[in-house]
């Protein structure tokens, strides 16, 4: 959406062309536009960076937070749903999200990538194009990481088979439609004019809310909260944090679809918002009388990255710093004060950070976009009106995620039983579900 705002009607036009261009070419065999190698180069790099976020990034971030008896299971679940998402994406995901035919809720066509060739191109937000295979791959990694993020709330107790079934259903009925509504030129939120540069709603609010719902249905880990469950390796969690930050530049700056000034803005914002969030989380700890912690640093980094995602190309660096700090403090309270009170077991805080941070970011984007706050918005930009748009997009996303996740989880339960046996949970999923130990 940021996109539409950024380049006015042009973008919409461009996007529409995008949706049809490649088509036309194949059909009418018209002379295809050629991708500028620089933009293709950046988008391939960005795509690879998003994979780095998942494996090993997220696998380490999440895995380090679990107990060692569940380390391998956590990493394998993440890797497997990512792999599954990639296959589903090329089979029907891309078609449902970005297919040539469709309405504001869903699209179809190009299933199994039919009709796409190395010469096919996809439009950017200017009159440039990139190779369509690159666009397909870039978007593919978004689907893969989103489902992987959801798993953060259900680790250490969900069956591996259940995870796979859940992922298959969830991607199909939740992710692809939302991706279409937000990013495709005909999508309802796109048309509404909601600002979401790199996927705050599609990826983070969506993953966070789905994670919460899944955790509520699945139930707590045995022994939670009275039994101590400290992270088995904060070292690995910090490594994962670093890799997530590094990879996130592909996620955010890549969402410009070109190596242009908009990408450059997203780049610097992804540095400063994150840096600010990391320090503010530790500050919040200090202020509430605790020691500034390593996990606090890591949590702040993620909170900042989540919050800046929708605002990456939609804010000035100072707006980004403020947004990062705000999201960080809010998430700190959500995770360390609110969660214990409510008592649900969002094991690795997928909701507490991606859900809450995503909402702060999505709403905040409606403010920092304003030139008054150094944002790229035009002088005619009205914060009030934009906030209404942002909030409605957020609420709609929450509703869809919650309903879809409920369906997906119950399907998984019906087919697999959902939760591992008491013995397996005690022994650990590594040995129980995969017949291996992480460390020998």
């Amino acid at each position, binding site marked *: 959406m940021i996109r539409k705002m950024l380049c006015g009607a042009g973008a919409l036009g461009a996007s529409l062309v995008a949706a049809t261009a490649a088509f036309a070419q194949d059909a009418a065999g018209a002379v295809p536009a050629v991708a500028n190698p620089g933009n293709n180069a950046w988008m391939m790099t960005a795509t690879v960076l998003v994979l780095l976020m998942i494996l090993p990034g997220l696998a380490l971030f999440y895995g380090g937070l679990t107990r060692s008896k569940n380390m391998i299971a956590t990493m394998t679940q993440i890797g497997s749903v990512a792999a599954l998402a990639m296959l589903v994406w090329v089979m029907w995901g891309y078609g449902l999200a970005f297919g040539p035919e469709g309405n504001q809720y869903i699209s179809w066509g190009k299933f199994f990538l039919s009709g796409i060739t190395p010469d096919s191109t996809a439009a950017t937000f200017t009159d440039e194009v990139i190779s369509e295979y690159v666009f397909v791959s870039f978007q593919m990694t978004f689907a893969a990481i989103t489902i992987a993020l959801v798993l953060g709330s259900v680790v250490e107790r969900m069956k591996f088979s259940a995870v796979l079934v859940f992922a298959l259903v969830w991607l199909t009925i939740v992710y692809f439609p939302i991706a279409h509504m937000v990013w495709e030129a005909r999508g309802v939120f796109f048309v509404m004019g909601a600002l979401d540069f790199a996927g705050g709603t599609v990826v983070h609010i969506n993953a966070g809310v789905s994670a919460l719902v899944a955790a509520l249905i699945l139930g707590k880990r045995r022994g939670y909260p009275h039994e101590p469950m400290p992270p088995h390796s904060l070292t690995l969690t910090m490594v994962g944090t670093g890799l997530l930050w590094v990879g996130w530049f592909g996620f955010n700056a890549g969402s410009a679809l070109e190596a242009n000034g908009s990408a450059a803005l997203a780049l610097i914002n992804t540095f400063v918002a994150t840096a600010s969030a990391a320090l503010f989380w530790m500050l919040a700890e200090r202020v509430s009388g605790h020691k500034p912690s390593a996990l606090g640093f890591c949590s702040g980094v993620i909170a900042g990255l989540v919050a800046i995602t929708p605002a990456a190309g939609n804010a000035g660096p100072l707006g980004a710093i403020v947004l990062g700090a705000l999201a960080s403090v809010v998430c700190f309270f959500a995770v360390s004060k609110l969660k214990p009170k409510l008592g649900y077991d969002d094991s690795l805080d997928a909701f507490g950070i991606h859900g809450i941070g995503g909402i702060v970011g999505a709403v905040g984007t409606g403010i920092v976009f304003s030139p008054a706050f150094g944002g790229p918005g035009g002088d005619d930009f009205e914060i009030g009106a934009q906030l209404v748009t942002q909030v409605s997009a957020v609420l709609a996303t929450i509703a869809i995620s919650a309903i879809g996740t409920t369906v997906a989880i119950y399907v998984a339960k019906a087919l697999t039983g959902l939760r591992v046996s008491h013995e397996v949970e005690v022994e650990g999923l590594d040995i129980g579900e995969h017949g291996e*130990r992480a460390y020998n």
Partner: protein
Amino acid sequence: MKFIIAIIKPFKLDEVREALGAIGVAGMTVSEVKGFGRQKGQTEIYRGAEYSTNMLPKVKIEVAASDALAAQVVETIQQTASTDSIGDGKIFVFDLASTTRIRTGETGDNAL
């Protein structure tokens, strides 16, 4: 004075510690061990190489207790650590020739 060594299932540690605290055991020393016995371990497979190790993770608790308390300690551990399933472990009791608290040099029951 008696010295009690108990081999238990790892997830029972907290319960046992609380139970012993309740009957007035001031301290204990805990270590991770691997246990071999009747209980059969899960088989692990790595690229077709199958290891059905019967070496299972256990926790070893060492408690020194006055003769008066010793019997109760054994009983408490036995009851708390039992799950009625193979592999619950063992309790071994030894006679202690002497005990010393390093900090103070106190010996005997005062050392505990």
